[in-house]
């Protein structure tokens, strides 16, 4: 899938005109809020953390608290499941069995 990174290597799902596209399968099945809590450093490039630690690419790591991202992703998956069950119900499929 294609995501976009800004000049701090933070991930975005849409380009605001200042970003560049990156192909990755790391975020397969993840919701937008989860993706936008991550930093992706492409291969051949490096990112320097505030404390001076240098991370060469490729690296994918959360810059937001992962516990928050995980909670958002779980809610997204719960909603996806609910939507699917509703769709099956509309089609007359017994989803409780």
């Amino acid at each position, binding site marked *: 899938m294609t995501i976009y990174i800004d000049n701090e290597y933070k991930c975005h799902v849409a380009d605001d005109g200042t970003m560049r596209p990156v192909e990755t399968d790391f975020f397969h099945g993840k919701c937008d809020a989860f993706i936008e809590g991550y930093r992706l450093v492409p291969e051949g490039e490096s990112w320097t953390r505030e*404390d001076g*630690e240098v991370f*060469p690419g*490729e*690296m994918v790591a959360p810059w937001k608290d992962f516990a928050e991202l995980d909670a958002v992703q779980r809610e997204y998956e719960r909603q996806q499941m609910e939507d699917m069950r509703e769709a099956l119900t509309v089609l007359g499929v017994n989803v409780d069995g």
Partner: protein
Amino acid sequence: MGECLITRRGGDPLSFKVVGGASQPSNAEENTIWVNTDTPITSWDFSASEAHRRSGSRNLIVYPYYHTTRVANGVEFTDNGDGTITVNGTASSGADAYFVIAAEGIPQKEFILTPGTYTLSGGVGDDTTNKCSLSVYTSADDWATTSGRYRASETPRTFTIDQTVKARAFIQVYGGVTLVNQVFKPQLEKGSATTSFIKGDATGQAWIKTADNGLRQFNALKKNGVILRPVSAKQYLNGAWISKPVKLYQNRAWQELAQYLYKNGEQYTSLTGGWGLGSGTVSGGKGGFAANADHLSFTGEADTYYGFGTTLKAVDLTNFSTLHVYGDGGGTFGVGTAQDGNFNASASVGSTLQNYSVDISGLSGSHYVKFKIGGSSTLRAYEVWLE
């Protein structure tokens, strides 16, 4: 050089000296910590009064509190011993009654908050009508000014701070107000959610204020009954905090203080459970694993299959910010919550034998440290460690 005191569980002090410089000091005393700095450090001024505690539990408010059971301005505050405080009485008119949970300017009692979102809960009533509150105040400049004031009634309060601050906490009953058997459950949690009350403790990180106007963080690790163990140090240099290696002179030898998960054949089994193949599969294969004399090797399976290896026990990443691998070959390493090929944070190992790192500062709690190798590639790991 300076001296420092960090408290173990139960208050038993662990004292050590800290020295700086580009070369390893000779004739060191026992329990001396050497920080490998670019320039010698000559003016560090550590003292027992500058060691800070932080709760190691989900509740970040340090317990025991500054005050114990007390009567103030006609109000009785009872420390119930389980982290809750029962309040009874009428505050004298014109004077508020306070129960101090964490005190300003008393390093062993105030606590440190790093940038992030927090939720304060456990107050009672509505502070508009009941006129009492549970408060956390913060300061980024040693209490010259207060940077944040956060109050919770029975409704929790979520707030975000963008720099490291010292924090104090207290219960306040306004003058003339009467409370009857009101129970406060002071709780400060990371994030925006409120969960069930749990008593805080004093087993978390120690922060040390130094004379050169900076805070040094000594990460904490729970192991073998010793609660506080410095594993990394930071030096404030040219306007930024720089990570520095730390060594401790103990048993007449300089010991690495990074938390190793593998090094020179040692698998650190008590922490990792050993190393091996994952229990699940990715694209069908598990690949190969070998524990050699001085390195671990992981191989992928031919064609399209992946191989993956992992610690056999989950490792607590709390208080660590970086996972390092010294190795070569080709593949991915990182951390995840299951023994499979999925990562919550990952980075690549290339063909050059060197240190590869991944940022894990956004992660905490139990994770497996893992490797994933594609095709028929091989990845060799000579050292794996956390800082």
